[in-house]
């Protein structure tokens, strides 16, 4: 029985995380930036579940799964508030290019 080694999961999640980070820096459309943030959160969830699989005690295994549930909740709240902010910016200036939003610049 040769299972998948833990390193493989970690390297896959590193690739996904870096793709999301590059997207957040490169993109100008805030909705696509949010999608890239979701990519990064999912990469972190993958590491949580992979580490949970390789723990020896039941308590720490379940803790990994519970943390993934909390990340789900934070992601849902973040998407709701973020998309609300995007609609407000769109209503103010008909364009949501993040480089043109300078309302908070002193």
């Amino acid at each position: 029985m040769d299972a998948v080694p833990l390193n493989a999961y970690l390297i896959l999640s590193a690739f996904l995380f870096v793709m999301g980070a590059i997207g957040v820096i490169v993109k100008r459309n805030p909705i696509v930036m949010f999608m890239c943030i979701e990519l990064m959160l999912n990469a972190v969830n993958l590491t949580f579940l992979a580490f949970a699989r390789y723990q020896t005690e039941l308590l720490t295994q379940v803790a990994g799964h519970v943390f993934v549930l909390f990340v789900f909740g934070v992601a849902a709240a973040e998407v709701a508030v973020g998309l609300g902010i995007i609609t407000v910016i769109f209503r103010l200036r008909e364009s949501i290019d993040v480089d043109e939003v300078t309302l908070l610049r002193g």
Partner: protein
Amino acid sequence: MGERVLFFVLAIVAILSAGGVVFSRNPVRSALLLVLNFFTLALIYFSLSAQFIGVLQVIVYAGAIMVLFLFVIMLLNLGSPDAMPQERDLKRPLAYLIGFGILATLVSQSLALLIPATPQASPDVGTARVIGLALFTQWAYPLLLMGVLLTVGVIGSILLARRRAS
């Protein structure tokens, strides 16, 4: 052997769809590729014996959150690829530099691990029974705080999106 082949195929699909999300010029196509990425991640969760989380991934992410994304894309009429220029060219090299720096750090760290390399968990860790029991006993207060956070988020987004009364 079969498990490794399955993981390899799923990992290739996940990385390609993530690249499609980042490098596609059309926001709608990005959203649909993100759905594909979430589904492959859910299958990887199943192979990690995390059944409950896998099902929740499909319901919450591929169901609720992606509907929210597509709804806002179509509400704000951002679906056409030339609605705005997508990339800022000056920051591209910087982004790749930062990205490959993070990637090299993470991969080099994950190659040297202290955790035993064979899976330890019994397959019923990921069931709703075990997770729910832990969630409502050991993690009850964090769960309540999560409910407060979600309530505040929903109320805040309603207040933001409401039209002004004047």
